[in-house]
């Protein structure tokens, strides 16, 4: 029987789901491998009682989210987190870089509760164990297909671990640091062929902090290149406010 796959969206802009829906050429092949029991964007059905694979997008921001995750972990044999929101807290976690309650008040008004049990945005792994990861903001559909295939075949999670610079060199990019501009590639998890740098923009760290990153050394490199060493820490806030390092 084809594995039943449910997609569960927490706090996010659904960009990752859109990416998956957009991958016309591979979608049919993958669909052949699985039964898309619940697909928040692609169908209007409700979450079934039973499914095999839970694909989670988005950060945890409410008690309802946490409950949904616990339920998903109990139900599914395999949990896949997709996108930086789900894996590191991503952009939602930016909320925690200053007084969270004050920020909430500015947006929604004082004492207004728009969701039950709101909490500081956090990665899925803060609530349940995650088996597979597809990092990025948004994710690369091809990487999603690869990870999903691995999950279905029972192969181990194989998220790349090393920093970005090696693959950036293979693209023959002129290093931003040599042009006096900050880049997070030297501490960011590789796996995207340094897409941003290749397209002319420094790496902003959407794939998360590399478990092999040498952050103190990277600050020294910034200083050596005439940048403020703390710029590195400021840049982390965009996608890595929680400084979550998935090993």
């Amino acid at each position: 029987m084809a594995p039943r796959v449910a997609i569960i969206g927490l706090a996010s802009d659904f960009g990752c789901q859109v990416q998956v829906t957009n991958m016309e050429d591979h979608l049919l092949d993958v669909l052949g491998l699985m039964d898309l029991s619940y697909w928040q964007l692609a169908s209007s059905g409700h979450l079934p009682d039973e499914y095999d694979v839970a694909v989670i997008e988005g950060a945890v921001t409410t008690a309802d989210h946490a409950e949904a995750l616990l339920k998903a972990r109990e139900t599914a044999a395999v949990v896949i987190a997709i996108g930086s929101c789900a894996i590191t807290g991503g952009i939602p976690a930016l909320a925690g870089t200053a007084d969270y309650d004050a920020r909430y008040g500015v947006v929604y008004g004082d004492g207004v509760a728009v969701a039950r049990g709101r909490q500081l945005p956090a990665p899925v792994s803060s609530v349940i164990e995650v088996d597979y990861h597809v990092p990025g903001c948004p994710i690369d559909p091809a990487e999603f297909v690869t990870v999903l295939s691995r999950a279905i075949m029972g192969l181990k999670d194989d998220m790349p671990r090393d920093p970005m610079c090696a693959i950036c060199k293979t693209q023959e990019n002129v290093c931003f640091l040599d042009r006096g501009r900050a880049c997070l590639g030297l501490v960011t998890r590789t796996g995207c062929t340094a897409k941003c740098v290749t397209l002319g923009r420094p790496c902003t760290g959407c794939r998360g902090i590399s478990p092999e990153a040498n952050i103190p050394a990277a600050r020294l490199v910034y200083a050596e290149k005439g940048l403020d060493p703390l710029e590195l820490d400021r840049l982390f806030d965009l996608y890595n406010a929680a400084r979550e390092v998935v090993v």
Partner: protein
Amino acid sequence: MFFRVIDKERLPDLVTGLSTEYEVIAPVEKDGRFVYAPVVDPGDVRLDYDTTLLPPKKWFFPAEETLMRFRVADNEVLDDEVFAAPRVLFGLHPCDINALLLMDNVFTGRYADPYYMRRREQTLLIGVSCSPSDTCFCNVWDTNEVHWGFDVFLTDMGDRYFASCRTVKGAEILDRFVENRTVTDEDTREFQRVVHDFKDAFDRSVDTTQLPVLLDAKFDSPIWDEFGEKCLSCGACSMVCPTCYCFDVHDRLEPDQKSGVRVRTWDSCQFKEFAAVAHGQNFRDTRASRVKYRYYHKQWGYLSKFERVLCVGCGRCARACPAGINPVNVIEALQTGEVR
């Protein structure tokens, strides 16, 4: 060897002529630096380049290549053809030609690599003289001279090139594609002068006396820990190095899971997983040990097998390493006991 002289103005004819039968790859400008790329217009070729971001190895051993396709159901190989178009690599500096000879020791030796070999056989090499940039230290290893490993080598003599043809093929392409003349005594004298000037232009010297002994004596030196603290484990040094040949092999399944491809990618000894083995063991667990063994391999391990160090002093790692770690400052640190 045959020698010819080519008028500098006529050189584009050679590129144009070669383009009718070969894919011509030469240094061209990219964002203020240089890369080896297929030539679209002979006017784009920049023989005044200092160095290229990636070395020519990518044309023989690409950063990523498919070794074969296979079928999952019965493990059958579907396609392992090595396709290699006839090519000319135009404008290689002596360091990069020497680097290919070091690569050959590995890829065409006992365990010959059909992918590398096929491309190597299909490619002509045309070298060109250079002048040292501030990161070059080929003089330290004598790799600023090249005696074989090229088809033609062009030495810039101002208004003309002194062309050394190492192979019959090299002489043939010159005669077919560009007006040239035989060498006069005056040309030979000028050639000698230019080559001497080139050798005199190096102001960097590194003492490499008994380097293997120095390395062994400093095996437990705290210097390695200092380099380990600076290293980002980013692998940039290996990617840009013309003599780094390590690779990784992965199988990737197609989305339908019925077939897959076996892919080879460049690897780096600076990555933690490089030396990870079954059972969770890793015999290069720390950054310090990884930096150390990069240099042990290059300046000692390879030397003990092939009688050359695995470095040609091209200086690409010196430009690429964000932490400023390179053979010159490693050797100097071992000698002085201080990381500069």
